[in-house]
């Protein structure tokens, strides 16, 4: 989007926070995360000592299983397979959803046509379609990625459409009074006004993509975290199940963090809370 002309190089606008906020412990998330992690490990160790490893393996066993997966490279294969499906499907789904959703939000006829479908499909979790997708698209990557495309598309679509519908009338009128054509109103008012909703949509979609990929990999896959978990279950390798679950959490954490870093570039301008 082309921004308005700046007449001089832009100085840093000073922004402040409360003195109490600086001293407050909640401004030091790293410290809090470390304490929570240590506490969890201690609780886990304690709980594991009360039962047998096949029900709840102690942290040490899981760490060894982790190391095994890392040293023979199999864990990275699984991570790579799952990340590939998630990120590809998510990116395609979001990219498709945004333009259609803004259009649906702004053109009543388009919305009316789509409305029955949306109201119908919104109650069906994407994983309900796994079997169909596999019958139609085969057992390979296509069906799994397509399922994630669908998941990401639907969530991003709903949020973006809500955003496009709620653009204030005054903003559109103001742009018209300033000489904006219909096309300019669309790209310079509707789209930027919808960005906070798009951000919400794609972040929710990322989370749902993680859920969907595991379910899809349970059903049919030769690699992936879902496959790792399901396969380990068959051989009663509870420690490997834990490896899968923890890896998944770390993968989600990383992906979300990366997305936040990327979005933080536009967050202030569009007043998006990350």
């Amino acid at each position, binding site marked *: 989007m082309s*921004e308005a*002309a700046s*007449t001089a190089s832009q100085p840093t606008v000073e922004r402040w926070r409360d003195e109490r906020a600086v001293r407050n412990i909640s401004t030091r998330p790293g410290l809090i995360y470390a304490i929570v992690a240590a506490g969890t490990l201690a609780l886990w160790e304690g709980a594991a000592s009360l039962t047998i490893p096949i029900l709840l393996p102690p942290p040490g066993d899981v760490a060894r299983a982790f190391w095994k997966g890392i040293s023979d490279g199999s864990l990275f294969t699984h991570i790579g397979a799952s990340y590939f499906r998630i990120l590809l499907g998510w990116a395609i789904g979001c990219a498709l959803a945004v333009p259609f959703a803004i259009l649906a939000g702004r053109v009543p006829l388009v919305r009316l046509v789509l409305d029955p479908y949306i109201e119908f499909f919104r109650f069906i979790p994407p994983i309900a379609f796994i079997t169909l997708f596999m019958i139609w698209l085969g057992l390979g990557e296509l069906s799994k990625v397509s399922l994630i495309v669908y998941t990401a598309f639907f969530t991003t679509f709903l949020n973006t459409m809500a955003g496009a519908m709620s653009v204030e009338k*005054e*903003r559109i009128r*103001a742009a018209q*009074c300033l000489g904006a054509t219909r096309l300019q109103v669309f790209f310079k*008012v509707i789209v930027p*006004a919808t960005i906070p909703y798009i951000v919400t949509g794609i972040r929710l979609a990322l989370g749902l993509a993680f859920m969907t990929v595991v379910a899809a990999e349970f059903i049919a896959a030769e690699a992936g975290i879902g496959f790792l978990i399901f396969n380990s279950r068959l051989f009663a390798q509870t420690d490997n199940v834990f490896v899968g679950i923890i890896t998944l959490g770390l993968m989600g954490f990383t992906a979300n963090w990366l997305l936040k870093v990327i979005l933080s570039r536009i967050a202030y301008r569009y007043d998006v809370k990350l």
Partner: protein
Amino acid sequence: MTSAVDLLAVGKRYEPLHAGASAYEAIEDFNLRIAEGEFFCLLGPTGCGKSTVMNMVAGFELPTSGSVLAFGKEVRGPSSERGMVFQSDIALFPWLTVEQNVAFGPNVRGLEKNEIARIVDENVELVGLHKHRWKFPRELSGGMKQRVQIARALANDATILMMDEPFAALDAQTRRRMQEELARIWSVKHRTVLFITHDIGEAITLGDRIGVMTRGPRSKLKEVVRVELPRPRLNMTPGFVDLYNSLEQTIGAESEAMLNE
């Protein structure tokens, strides 16, 4: 003198939402002529249709009878010829800085970059926001946000400026300051202004003429008075007070009739 705005026997009728209900005649037989360069204040009780009149001049709504002319040409939709300052600051673009908001009009009209920069400088300076030009609207006070709206409308060189209760949401002191500011800006940039307000003092401070509307439905102009007081106009001078009282009586009669209906 050329007339900038002409409303000729204008009527606005809203069709009922449900079959069987009756239509609402908001405005009926509304006649008004605003001369070029004139500051016209439209005064009336809440719900009398002031905003409907303005929406028709702006081109957001079209009259159901009669015609609305801007410099002799029929108004068919919004245009950069007719700038607008809205009551609410949500009309600003919150993702653009002060200067980017002001540059919006010149930008969409495809002016040259240097020209845009010059226009932005001039108007940001005129409303006294040069120190805040890199801020986003949410970082400004209510009064400053309305200044941005004024600068944004002025930057477009509109021949007619419409203001829909622009200071109604401000506190009393800020409103006073803004009225003085607007009077000063208007003395620099002599534009035709259609200013809507329900504040009698504001109308007397700013207007060349004041039109009082009757209550709705079927609102029309009840009377138009010329303000003969010298500028800048001070609140408590005898002429001011007399005019205030007489206008208050006119509007009071409308409000009372509305309550008794």
